[in-house]
């Protein structure tokens, strides 16, 4: 048998019945370790779910102890319609005796990893397209699409075994260039379909030297290249991060030495400059220098791609002792309450407030265009969102994706700007 990838071994270990062999494309019946669910907004959907469960004869939810409801899109509720939908979903979970994370806890992908619920070797089922983010801890984290009813009703779902591509990144970044710039660069080179139908493993000397925050950023953006799941092989950095968080025992899986990656993409990033993804696609990537000086109305820091402590630290380093341009709204939405607490302890929150940034509670914020910074038609934003499709932050708005440092530098100048001149020379880029 040809070697197996760690992701394929994780799936096999969660499959029932246990498969005797594993082929890419084959469907396995999987019992996940965690079934995370949005406190969603559509009333018809929960009505239908309850009716379907009744019809299938399901009373106790078989995964009850593994169901983790959270509320991050449109949280706290921005409109009466969304509030009514969220109430209906909350009632559903409460009736089944399942505890719900509060609407200030943060974005699902952050809280599930920060609280040690998603661990190396876990399978997590979650209907959010950026679920691959959590592959940074060495979990199998594919976005759930289809399978929601199966998971509620029988506690299992069907997943196709992916083939795995490798993205190997080597080198050391220059000053003013960050992990998010690397992610943008990789997305630009691979394109939106570059990893379609595959899982992706990130490796190489750059990745090995990377903090967990930036590994999450890389894995997050696998989604925008079409990847089913992202993965970083757990190492000492992972294990040190997970050690005090793990809510249960876990197992690290390894890839067999002879495993044949379906593709290997190699990147050398030592000469990379700050990058942007210009409107209206996450792979429309170019050096920031090509759009420098473009007028902006809003700057946005947040999202499951770039709403972590290091992201806020980078923005604070740029903004320290400076002010946001009076014509710009600079909105900062930390990714989780843990990020808020840490950023407060480190003094970054003071820097942001002194600079006249608009700091919000922890949630998905303006990234999905539901509240907290919707653009008017014709307005331009620079943002470290996950994506910049047409109308994402409001119909008719334009979004440039960039690193948190580039977003902060642009907020100061009121136009797209490089962060390099705002960063002291002794600072080392993560």
């Amino acid at each position, binding site marked *: 048998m040809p070697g197996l990838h760690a992701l394929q071994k994780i799936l096999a270990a969660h499959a029932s*019945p246990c498969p005797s062999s594993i082929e890419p494309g084959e*469907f396995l019946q999987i019992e996940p370790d965690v079934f995370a669910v949005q406190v969603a907004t559509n009333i018809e*959907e929960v009505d239908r779910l309850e009716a379907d469960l009744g019809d*299938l004869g399901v009373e106790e939810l078989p995964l009850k102890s593994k169901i983790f409801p959270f509320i991050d899109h449109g949280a706290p509720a921005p409109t009466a319609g969304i509030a009514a939908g969220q109430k209906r979903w909350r009632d559903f979970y409460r009736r089944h005796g399942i505890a719900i994370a509060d609407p200030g806890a943060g974005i699902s992908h952050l809280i599930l990893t920060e609280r040690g619920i998603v661990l190396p070797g876990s399978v997590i089922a979650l209907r959010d397209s950026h679920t691959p983010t959590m592959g940074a801890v060495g979990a199998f984290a594919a976005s759930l699409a289809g*399978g929601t*009813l199966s998971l509620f009703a029988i506690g299992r779902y069907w997943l196709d075994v992916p083939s795995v591509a490798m993205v190997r990144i080597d080198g050391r970044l220059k000053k003013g260039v960050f992990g998010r710039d690397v992610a943008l660069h990789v997305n630009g080179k691979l394109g*939106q379909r570059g990893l379609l139908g595959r899982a992706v493993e990130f490796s190489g000397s750059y990745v090995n030297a990377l903090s967990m925050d930036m590994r999450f950023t890389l894995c997050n953006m696998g989604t925008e290249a*079409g990847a089913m799941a992202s993965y970083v092989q757990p190492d000492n950095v992972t294990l040190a991060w997970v050690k005090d968080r793990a809510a249960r025992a876990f197992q690290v899986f390894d890839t067999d030495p002879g495993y044949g990656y379906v593709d290997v993409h190699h990147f050398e990033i030592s000469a990379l400059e700050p990058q942007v993804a210009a409107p209206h696609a996450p792979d429309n990537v170019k050096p920031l220098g090509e759009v420098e000086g473009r007028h902006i109305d809003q700057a946005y820091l947040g999202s499951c791609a770039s709403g972590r402590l290091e992201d806020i630290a980078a923005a604070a380093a740029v903004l320290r002792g400076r002010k946001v341009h009076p014509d710009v709204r600079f909105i900062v939405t930390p990714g989780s309450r843990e990020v808020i607490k840490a950023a407060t302890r480190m003094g970054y929150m003071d820097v942001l407030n002194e600079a006249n940034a608009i700091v919000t509670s922890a949630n998905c914020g303006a990234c999905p265009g539901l509240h907290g910074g919707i653009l008017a038609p014709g307005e331009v934003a620079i943002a470290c969102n996950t994506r910049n499709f047409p109308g994402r932050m409001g119909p008719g708005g334009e979004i440039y994706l960039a690193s948190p440092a580039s977003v902060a530098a642009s907020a100061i100048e009121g136009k797209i700007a490089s962060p390099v001149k705002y960063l002291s020379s002794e600072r080392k880029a993560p």
Partner: protein
Amino acid sequence: MIVTGAVWKFALDDIDTDQIRRAVYSHLPKEEQGQHCLESLDPTFASRAQPGDVIVAGKNFGCGSSRPAHVAILALGIGAVLAESFGRLFFRNSISGGLLVVPCPGIVEFASAGDRIELDTVAGLVRNVASGQTLSFPPLPEFLREMAELGGEKPYLKKWLERQRVGPLAPGDASPAA
């Protein structure tokens, strides 16, 4: 399964789920979501589409967010979506929701807006009803085809649970493809 219908063509690549149905309409009843279906690409589509019509699209149709945008297409009674390829999440959501989605390389060149086409999911064949021209495609994996044709995840689970109750399972019988 045979599906026959008139073609609506959205020839662009990478049409994301927010363009199929924007996030701000997520909480609305499905009929109202249908009225906003693909409105940023063709504001007249929702009002002119007829039940049974077929959507033809480019590569990576339904990329982006995992929000169940297929609901808006289903609400219009669309019979099938044929695309050069699909975003994985939209594809799986659609099958679970009972919307027939078929990856069909070459379909954008093959089909023109307004053509009547006949889709045979088992044979993996699309036929232009007027000209008789055909285009073949790899049929869906059995498991997905069965789920889509039964009407989605709910009827599929019902059948699966019945099979579980019927008697002792041979190895592999728990697998839906068996």
